[in-house]
Structures are given as structure tokens and as C-alpha cells.
């Protein structure tokens, strides 16, 4: 007699390489944000999981959607003229889809400012580029924590929030004016160090190179010279 055995399905260990981003897949894989790290038994392929979400930015740029509104991810995708006359300001308020804020509007506590020079410096003579702003809630698990943070007890990503910025599927370095992200938070104890970081895909860890951190009362401004 032939016995058939089926191993229990563990999406966090066997996330597909051929990135599928249907609502069902996104919801399923987002469970790994809490599942990975809960116990040593919940084996997860952190590398693949992270790549899945990193590629989601590209997927958003390639597809003709405008917004994403799921509990763990909010995104705004827009076509932007490279000939903008002013810096662009977007609200990153928690649990809201990012939205553009006009110059005469009150500045939201959590925001991102994209300098107009960023669009002018893009390679090629394009009249418009696609911009994706993503806010991802990475939960309390091990996904996107990076080796250093996981080793360093007590360290964390502020509010488990990552802000993704993508302009036209291009790497942009050495910006003359930095991209500015403002994170609001409660007043931190003096024995807590706050560092603005970006996710280095090659290293698979957080890095602060090219980013400066300006500490304020109840908010921190991050300025980075690259995307």
C-alpha cells in the first residue's frame, strides 16, 4: 500500500520565489510578521520573506494601481512629473494610506518630503516617473529586524514601521538635497539611541550610511542622500 504523507504547510519557511501578490498571498505571508520569532520551532526563511516584501515595491510600480489599504500595508502609487516646481510632501500618518499634502496645509506629524531636485536628477529624459510610498507594519517578529537588532536585546524598530520609497525603479544616490522622513513618537528616555536607517538589500540588514538623524522633542527627522 502506498502511504501518502503531507507535511503541514508552512508559508514562512517556503515562501514562493515567483512573487505572487494577490490579496490572499499578501495576507497569508503577512502572518509571518508575528509568526516568525514567536518560538524557535517556527522556522522561517527570513531572507525570502524579506525579498518578497522588497519586491512588492517594484510590483506596485509596475502595476496600474493607485492605493493599497490592508491592515499591515498602506501604499500610494502616483505618476509624478519630473518637472515639479516644489518639493513634494506626503502624510505618513499611522493606519492611513499615504496622501499628498499641499503647501498651504498643516504639516502632519509623520511625513516624507521629496525634494524637487530628486526628480530632475533622474537618469533619462522622462517627463514622468512612477512613485510608490509604502508603509509596512512588520510586527514584533524577526522579519526585517536584521541580525544586529536581533542580537541586541531590547532594540527595536520604532512602532514596527517601515517606510518604503520608490521612484521609477531606479537607484538614486548622492542626492544634492536629501529625502526627509519625519517620525513622530513619544519622548524617549536619554539612555535610548535613535538611529535613522535604510534596509541594505545586499547585506540583509539595516544601515545608516548616507542618513542623518535629527533628534527633536517627540519627533525624529531622518535625511538620506539616496533611494
Amino acid at each position: 500500500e502506498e502511504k501518502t504523507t503531507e507535511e503541514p504547510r508552512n508559508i514562512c519557511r517556503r515562501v514562493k520565489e515567483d512573487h505572487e501578490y494577490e490579496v490572499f498571498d499578501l495576507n497569508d505571508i503577512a502572518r509571518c510578521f508575528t509568526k516568525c520569532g514567536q518560538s524557535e520551532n517556527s522556522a522561517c526563511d527570513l531572507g525570502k520573506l524579506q525579498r518578497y516584501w522588497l519586491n512588492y515595491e517594484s510590483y506596485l510600480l509596475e502595476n496600474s494601481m493607485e492605493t493599497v489599504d490592508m491592515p499591515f500595508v498602506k501604499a500610494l502609487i502616483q505618476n509624478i512629473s519630473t518637472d515639479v516646481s516644489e518639493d513634494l510632501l506626503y502624510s505618513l500618518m499611522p493606519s492611513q494610506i499615504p496622501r499628498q499634502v499641499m503647501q498651504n496645509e498643516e504639516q502632519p506629524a509623520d511625513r516624507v518630503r521629496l525634494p524637487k531636485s530628486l526628480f530632475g536628477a533622474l537618469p533619462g529624459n522622462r517627463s514622468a516617473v512612477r512613485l510608490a510610498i509604502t508603509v509596512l507594519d512588520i510586527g514584533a517578529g524577526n522579519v526585517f529586524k536584521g541580525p544586529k537588532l536581533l542580537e541586541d536585546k531590547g532594540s527595536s524598530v520604532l512602532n514596527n514601521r517601515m517606510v518604503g520609497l520608490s521612484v521609477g525603479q531606479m537607484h538614486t544616490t548622492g542626492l544634492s538635497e536629501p529625502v526627509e522622513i519625519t517620525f513622530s513618537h513619544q519622548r524617549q528616555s536619554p539612555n535610548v539611541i535613535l538611529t535613522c536607517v535604510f534596509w541594505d538589500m545586499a547585506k540583509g540588514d539595516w544601515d545608516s550610511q548616507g542618513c542623518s538623524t535629527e533628534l527633536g522633542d517627540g519627533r525624529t527627522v531622518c535625511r538620506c542622500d539616496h533611494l
Partner: protein
Amino acid sequence: TFFALLLRPILDLATAQTLTRISQAGSAVSMIFLAFTMVLYVAFRFSLQRFKAEDAPKIHMALSISLFLLNLTFLINVGSSSQGPPASCWVRAAIFHYFLLCVFTWMGLEAFHLYLLVIRVFNTYFGHYFLKLSLLGWGLPVLVVIGAGSSNSYGVYSIRNQENRTSLELCWFQKEPALYVTVHGYFLVTFLFGAVVLALVAWKIFTLPSVTAGKGQGPTWKSVLTVLGLSSLVGMTWGLAVLTPLGLSTVYIFTLLNSLQGLFIFCWFIILYFPTQSTTASSSGTARMDQAHFVSQE
């Protein structure tokens, strides 16, 4: 590109060393005064009749012994290197954990006894009362330590500084989930119980003068001192640990006050039991309540 803001709590080498010195000095002072308390207890048992019958001094004594041994194991643990055979570090961590849990349990039992004396008052007689408390006070921590030990939770624990260098290393937990359940969780349960009982007792103490109106109100500072004394018994100084995320100053206050718990217990013991001319007519709220309990037991 994804961006984020990282939060890293740091304990630099200088701060870790200062806090360690304060803890060591405080623990040593506590140990000396806890030893005095134990000697006094033995002396009182021979000279004062009520000591043989009352349970409260016995519970104070069990707490004093467990706190003395906790301070002793802490000083040995911090003073000795965590290097060496893993088995030795494992044993040191388990013993340290055991006495910490004994202290938490006896503080909880102090609160329970206080509850019987002040809140419940009537029908508080239990056969072999102190024996049952002792089984719980010394036995329950054994079960927890066996559980933590069998899941291989003990080992070297490191506190790292900004440059990821080790500020302090001691034999303690190597697995955080076990630490959260068997230390933080255990503490939280006993602490919350103690805090509730203390709040009820404080309310009774402060409202007592109004009940005995006409006999003259006692000075409020005495009531305040009584509550402060009781709070050291039920371990309110440990509760300051909850406030340590507020900043370094609260870490220092916690370290100082908590390591001196033995001194506070000694002071309480002296105020409560040291024979003076006025002892028999003591106006201390708890002393009266001890008396009431003694009568109700009879």
C-alpha cells in the same frame, strides 16, 4: 528603499559599573541588617512570649532569610566570572533564580497575611498555617526552577553597550521567553496582589482615626510610616523596576532603594517588636492588628 528609525536602549560601561557598585553596597548593607534581624528574632523568641505564638514575625523571618540568601547569591554571581564550565554557570543561575522567586513568594505571602489580619479579620484560623505557607514559600519556586532548568533556560546573560561590547555578564537566563514567564510574570502576579492588599490596608489605616472619633486622632506621619514599612514587606520597591524605562535617574533610584530592602525590613522589625515601655500600648496600626489576629486565633 525601505527606511525606519531604530531604538536601542544602552547601558554604557560606566553606568553599568556604577549600578553594580550601588547594588553590591546596598546588598551588603541589607545582608548585615537582615543578619541583625535574624539574631533579634532568635533573641525575642526566648524573651517575648508572643513571638512563639504569632505568625507575622515568622513570615518576616522567612522573607528575611530568603532576601539574605538572594543578596548573597547576587554578590557571588556578580563578583565571580561567568566563564568556566557551563554546568557551574547553570547551577549559579538556577540558585539565584530560586532565591529571587522565594523573595517574590514570601512578599506575596506577607501580603496574604496582611490581608487576613486587616481585611478579612474574622475566621482566619487555618490548621498548620505557617507550615502551609512554608511549603508554598519554599516549594513553589522549586517547581518553577525545575521547569526553567529542564527547558535549558539558564546560561550566560550579557548586557551590551553602544559599541556592542559587553558591559556586564552574569549567570542568568539565556532564553528570554523563560525569563519573561518565570521572572517578570511571576513578579507581576505577586506585585499586583501586594499592591492591591497594600492599597486596601492603607485605606483602612488612614480611615481608622475617623472610626475611632472622639478618642483623638493619631498623628498622620505614623500612618504614613506604617504604610511605608508595610510597603517594604510586600516589595513595593521592586515595583520601581516598572518605571525604569522612564530614564536613568529612575534606574538609580530603583537600584538604591531595592538593594536596601533588607535595611528597611530591619527598621520595620525594630519599630514593631523592639521592647519599649510603650510597646504593650503601641498605637501602630499593624501592631494592633497583629494583636487582634492573635485574639481571633485563640
